């Protein structure tokens, strides 16, 4: 399993306690995704980020739903390698 997270560089200098928001999911559980594919869009300090799949995989579970917030390091989704 591979966790999808917002890279730690995105949180640099962000005020402790700040959370990011999942603006939208572009995939659903069970979808097959390619490495580098944009699978979600999140917002942190007025910045809109593309979240990309790190590997070719199947979306096993979406852990943070659309319009929910998340903390640094928190997994947004779990991917199962597409072998």
């Amino acid at each position, binding site marked *: 399993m591979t966790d999808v997270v917002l890279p730690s*560089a*995105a*949180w*640099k*200098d*962000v*005020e402790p306690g700040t959370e990011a*928001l999942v*603006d939208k999911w572009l995939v659903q559980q069970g979808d097959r995704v390619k490495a*580098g594919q*944009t699978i979600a*869009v999140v*917002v*942190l*300090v*007025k*910045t*809109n*980020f*593309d979240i*990309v799949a790190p590997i070719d995989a199947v979306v096993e579970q979406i852990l943070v739903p659309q319009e929910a917030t998340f903390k640094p390091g928190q997994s947004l989704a779990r991917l199962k390698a597409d072998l």
Partner: protein
Amino acid sequence: MRLLPEPHARAQPAPPATTVTAAAEQRWNEAALAQPVEATDWRLWAYREAAVVLGCSQRRLLAEFGTGPGVEVLVRAAGGGAVLVGPWMLGLSALLPAAHALAACGPVPSYRWLGEYLAQSLQQVGIAATTLSPDALRARRGERPALALDWACFGGLSPWEVLVGERKIAGLAQVRRRQGVLLVAGLLLQPPPWTLLCERLGRPRDEAQLLALASTSCAQERADVEPVPLAAALIQALANAVQAALKTTNP
């Protein structure tokens, strides 16, 4: 009083702001990020008419207010609160390759250089602008609770946004995609008709007064200078600053 210091007065003339609709600006921004960004680029925008530009997370307001009578309502790719663009505002789009030093440093440091260049440009036209560091923002939030006005860009504060005293004069936002990074800013040349924004989005009218108190504009800060030459000097200063920043820090 001279509006520009000598070094910038000697600089190459910068292109003036492009007069557009808010929709045309958003189309330029989208097109700029639709393919890999290989070189820096930037635009200054003047707006020929009023429009409400929602932050991407405010998309649901579009369904509620997007089709009603009045000024156009649209959504931008970047986050943040609603912006009332119009002839009272100067917009900026700065486009960077994802690996550019000014982009790769992360979103908050990216806001820093943009906010500081905006503040310096305002200082060059005699406006005592400062940026809001994360520490200063934290202290400010500790001193007084935030007003529930952050549905509007100029009702909230984020790191490295530009203030004059306690009042916001320029707001920042950005979009980070695999293809590149787009930083955007909105700077108030004149006081916006805040009641128009409140009415268009169904907000109480008294929030217009609060937005007026939370924000300021170049015309308010330099009431001794005619607005048109002031705006022209600011555009020149800002164009020179952004041009120099994007050029000299290219990795």
